[in-house]
């Protein structure tokens, strides 16, 4: 019984510390989420900037009737 006392206190102490750290992790989780969305939006912007026109060209070259590569490059 006596041994359990300090165990209980330790558990409480741990819980208490966990509680405060969980609130800080939840706030930092929000920060992490914001940082992650900013990072992914930046990457999406770069991907769109470089890849949008090639995407249209790829989609267009696959449509029926399939145009020839020569038609894509020639000026006539």
């Amino acid at each position, binding site marked *: 019984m006596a041994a359990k006392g300090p165990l209980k206190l330790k558990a409480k102490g741990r819980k208490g510390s966990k509680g405060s750290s969980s609130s800080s992790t939840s706030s930092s989780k929000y920060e992490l989420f914001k940082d992650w969305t900013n990072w992914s939006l930046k990457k999406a*912007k770069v991907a*769109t*900037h470089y890849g*949008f*026109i090639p*995407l*249209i*060209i790829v*989609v*267009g*070259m696959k*449509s*029926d*009737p399939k*145009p020839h590569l020569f*038609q*894509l490059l020639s000026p*006539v």
Partner: protein
Amino acid sequence: MADIFPPLVTSQIDAKPKVDEKVDYSNLPCPVPYEELHREASMSLKADNFEGLRFDFGKGLNQKFSLTHSVMMGPTEVPSQSPDTTIKIPTAHYEFGANYFDPKLMLSGKVMTDGRLNARLKADFTDKLILKANAQLTGEPHMSHSVFNFDYMGKDYRAQLQLGNSALIGATYIQSVTPRLSLGGEVFWAGVPRKSGLGYAARYETDQMVASAQVASTGLVAMNYVQKISEKVSLATDFMYNYFSRDVVASVGYDYILRQSRVRGKIDFNGVTSALLEERLSMGLNFLLSAEVDHKKKDYKFGLGLLVG
């Protein structure tokens, strides 16, 4: 031009006068989208006048896929301190574009020599739900804009949700109240200049005329009226007023659609006169002449263009 004014088919075929016709309130037509409220007036009054030379060459590879090459040489305006003088810097650029048009998906992209990309996407998820996205991307940080619109088309209403890149959220709703009158509203919230706004709009149309009005909490009041005189001629007038900054602009314009050409012109009460002529020289060859004369600022702009394909 015929598809602009929705034909009231029943009243035109019947010999009975329109007064006798009962309005079927459960069967109203779908209204125009909220952003196209002033569509007919914009065609005459907000024609795209340009300055300099413009040469567009479009090559279709396919029914759905086409490439465009555009060369533009002319002065571009730079904002200056005093409102009386305009600073113009001559520029020349080449723009390459690719377009893909499918009934369910439309992709359009244009890239300039300085790396600016102008991208548009329109996807029909279902019959009624459409996604539209529009983006201008540049290499410089914080100078890119993108807007995503989700449109839902109901039986006699349309609703739209708009999301923009710097925390911009907006929603619009427009509803047909009678076969000729539609009313709508919008609300938006912009994160960067922290402001929100509310607006209302109304549009009344018949076969011969369209009248629309819009009020917004940003201080804008816009009213316009378009009268279709005949199949070839229509006249438009527009009045815009900002009740915070007390700016008033009124303009009157015309739109002549002839067999081989289309002339649009307007005169403004700020002293700006402009006209745009598009002439079809032969199949696939269009010639453009644009002129804009601003008497108050003594700014004269003339443009010449050729569109091939």
